[in-house]
């Protein structure tokens, strides 16, 4: 079967359309689960057939589309995209399962979730910049609706802020894509939006200033999505107001698009930019700033979900730092951090969702001792929090360890700064656990129930996966390392690092 990737994208798209048209909740959620499950199966097939030892594109597909612009529908996977495709396909069915009890406009709800899947899969697989951009933008729309229809009290503000903020960033990125495209066109005289082709021709640009401008525009597009401090303020708002499923998808998948961009686009052109040294420092500063800033802000939060949102910022800072270090293992560590954070943050947001649902509040001070009535949740939440604070044996540790250890070669100062964050990271996680989950039960909450079985089940699966990849990261780490090595061949050749 040749067209597995397009099939993988088409099935949820079809599923989304059918889901929109269904009338009952049962139909909607069954179809959503079925189609996302099918997509998962295909991605597992792809995963099992994937050859981790080569860095070239596998399962490539190409169909002509807009010939006059040189656009064609190109899809393919390599070690950068494959793990994220897998992650998307893991997270979405579990999100559907988690949100099994959704009653408000269920058909739209599940349909939008499936659309998100379509969008992120498209982003992670398309190899044509035009198509990439289209999927990149498509992702925004379902999320906007997820926040603004199923969101919390300030959903309007948050949804629109999310939309405009990230849209502006994408448009800036679009400008850079134009420039790349034009440049490549000038070189060859043939219009072509092929991603690798455009990136390869980046080095031909003569003006160093223009090179840096293009680079920064692309970087900006990705950093906003990640999000990195100081472009992060849309994230806490969006998370706080989004429904749990929305938060999960936002944090687990949408943020990963930014990181994906770093590896797919930024790193190949970094050595050829006008002033690589400065740009590397810039990325490193932003990375460390995000780590520390996110940590301290998380420490200041009263709302559990907001705290988790800031922890996302902090964790995504590691991705930037690892990418900026330009060491094969730090880069693969950063890729693994993306994968791992996707799983972990899903658990965290699901926990927040269950608590909100059962206790009716997420304010840490208003909770207290809920472990008494919600033992299963407390257990899984604890597991998630521990994974999030980088406990060894869970996937987050592997990623952070690789990043810290390997980034030290090129960015020692930044690594030392990042290390300071670790204690405080543990601090806010444990503080929240202690105040919200442990301690004396707050009788004001009334009698609360443990999370529903499907929610607990999906969280449990995620926790198992976190532990699995924490003990055995190789299934995804090997392919990441292969591609990181290939990416950094450029860098070494160019003499950016020695």
């Amino acid at each position, binding site marked *: 079967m040749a067209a597995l990737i397009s099939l993988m994208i088409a099935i949820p798209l079809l599923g989304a359309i059918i889901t929109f048209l269904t009338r009952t909740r049962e139909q909607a959620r069954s179809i959503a689960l079925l189609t996302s499950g099918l997509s998962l199966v295909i991605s597992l097939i792809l995963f099992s057939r994937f050859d981790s030892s080569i860095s070239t594109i596998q399962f490539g597909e190409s169909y002509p589309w807009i010939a*006059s612009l040189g656009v064609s529908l190109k899809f393919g996977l390599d070690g950068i995209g494959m793990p994220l495709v897998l992650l998307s396909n893991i997270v979405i069915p579990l999100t559907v399962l988690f949100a099994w009890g959704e009653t408000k406009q269920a058909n739209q709800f599940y349909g939008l979730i499936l659309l998100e899947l379509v969008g992120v899969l498209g982003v992670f697989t398309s190899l044509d910049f035009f198509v990439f*951009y*289209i999927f990149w933008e*498509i992702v*925004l729309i379902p999320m906007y609706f997820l926040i603004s229809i199923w969101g919390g009290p300030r959903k309007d503000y948050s949804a629109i802020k999310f939309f405009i903020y990230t*849209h502006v960033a994408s448009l800036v990125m679009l400008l850079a894509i134009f420039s790349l495209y034009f440049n490549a066109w000038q070189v060859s005289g043939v219009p072509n939006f092929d991603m690798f082709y455009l990136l390869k021709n980046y080095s031909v640009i003569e003006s160093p200033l223009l090179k840096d401008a293009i680079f920064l525009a692309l970087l900006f597009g990705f950093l906003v999505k990640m999000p990195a401090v100081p472009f992060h303020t849309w994230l806490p708002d969006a998370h706080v107001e989004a429904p749990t499923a929305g938060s999960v998808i936002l944090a687990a998948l949408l943020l990963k698009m930014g990181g994906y961009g770093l590896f797919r686009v930024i790193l190949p052109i970094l050595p050829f930019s006008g002033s690589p040294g400065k740009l590397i420092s810039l990325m490193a500063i932003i990375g460390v700033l995000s780590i520390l800033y996110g940590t301290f802000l998380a420490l200041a939060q009263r709302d559990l979900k907001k705290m988790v949102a800031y922890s996302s910022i902090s964790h995504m800072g590691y991705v930037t730092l690892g990418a900026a270090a330009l060491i094969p293992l730090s880069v693969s560590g950063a890729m693994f951090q993306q994968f791992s954070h996707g799983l972990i943050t899903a658990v965290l947001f699901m926990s927040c969702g269950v608590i909100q649902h059962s206790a009716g509040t997420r304010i840490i001070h208003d909770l207290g001792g809920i472990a008494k009535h919600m033992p299963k949740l407390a257990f899984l939440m604890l597991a998630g929090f521990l994974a999030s604070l980088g406990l060894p044996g869970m996937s987050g540790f592997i990623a952070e360890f690789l990043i810290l250890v390997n980034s030290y070669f090129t960015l020692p100062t930044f690594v030392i700064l990042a290390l300071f964050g670790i204690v405080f990271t543990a601090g806010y996680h444990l503080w929240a656990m202690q105040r919200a989950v442990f301690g004396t039960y707050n009788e004001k909450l009334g009698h609360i129930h443990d999370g529903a079985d499907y929610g607990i089940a999906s969280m449990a699966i995620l926790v198992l996966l976190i532990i699995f990849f924490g003990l055995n990261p190789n299934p995804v780490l090997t392919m990441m390392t292969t591609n990181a090595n290939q990416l950094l061949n450029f860098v070494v050749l160019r003499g950016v690092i020695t």
Partner: protein
Amino acid sequence: MSYGLLAPEIILTIVGLVIILLGLLITDKSKNMIGYFGAAGLVVALGYVLKTMTAEGSFFYNALVIDPLSQIFKLIFLIVSLMVVIASISYFKDNRNQDEYYALILLSTVGMMVVASANDLVALFVGFELASMSTYVLAGFEKKNPASLEAALKYFIIGSLSSALMLFGMSLVYGVTGSTNIPVIIEFFKTNPMMATNSLDIIAMIFLVAGFGFKMALVPFHMWAPDTYEGSPSVVSSLLAAGSKKMGFVAAFRVLVLALVAIRIDIQMTFAILAVITMTYGNIVAISQRSIKRMLAYSSIAQAGYISLAFVVMTQMSVAGGVLLALGHALMKGGAFIAVALVGYMVLSDNRNAKNLDDIGNFAGLGKRAPITAFSLLVFFLALAGIPPSAGFIGKFVLFYSITIEAVAQASNWLLLVVIIAILNSALSIYYYARVIRYMYVLPPNGEKIKEPTPYVVAILLAVIGTIGIGIYPEPFIQMAMNAASVLGV
């Protein structure tokens, strides 16, 4: 000399006249059939244009030409008219004067089509006036409605002023060049570059810009547009925003682009400033509107700003982008106004004496009350905001991209700045579109679900299919636009 290529204009004229005749003969009740007749005429004309997309020809001593540029704009005009006519079948149902209405629409379409084909200033002027005058009447078609009449009056006054300005400009052009035939004029300018410093040229050009700019609703010639779009019957607003506006663009493409290139005046900067001011103004003012029609009007001004970026660099690519965006905008804006008309119908069916039919409050819960309309509006809004895959995205993409190319090629920082402003503007526009989307999908409905009348739905879906279709399969349209642009030889 065969006039076969002019068949669409001829068919529409005949159908229009027959409709007037029919109106005199048949009973008021059976007048509801006239709409279908008009639509049939439009479909035939449309089919003919589609068949002759790549045809070339020239008529009446070179006063009219058929070329890809004219054909693609005729396509736009015919599609818009068709949508408007179909929607009007519901909108003007049981109206005693609907025969005149349809006849006027068809005649104004003929006017627009003449402008699209015009190769002579006289033909251009005549077509312009034919289209304008029909639309003046259409804008004031609801004779009992003060808003409609006021809209018509304002439209008329500013419109005649602009016609006069345009005529004055044309007279100067004629005076300088001694001809009214556009190719001759261009040739003259090309061979007499010394004239470029002659202030008559500049004044003439600016008068022409003013005349066309009025139709395009460019700042500062835009003032009529919000009032007129708001006051006119929604279907007429649709025609004005989607069709008549494009007439200004095709005229500008025909005359201005060439003339300006020929005169070799470097007015890039001036046009850039006009375009930037136009889009920013449109977007900023649109933010605080409560009337959807008014909001759409301002958004239409903003879109005009984007399209007129094509004049800034005047490359084949940019003109193609402008044409594409014009095509896309015709579909999106036309569809959006028709959807607003449907909402007005819905509000009226709740309460016969309702005022402010297009108030944003009426859109609350539209997703539940009229799902097709709401979804279509969603598509239009997202497309207008330039979200892929849609006609709006493709148009903007090609356009912005062509300007970036020029910016890179000329190493021009301010051109790049123009693109950045344009891009930020298009992000800003999301703000007010999203507000309506929120009303439609987030807020609770304040009424029962309604049955959406079939004619409206057909018209809207036509636009939706076009909007998304161009977004998904843009290749033939890009080709068409490129061909059209190549006619200009820029």
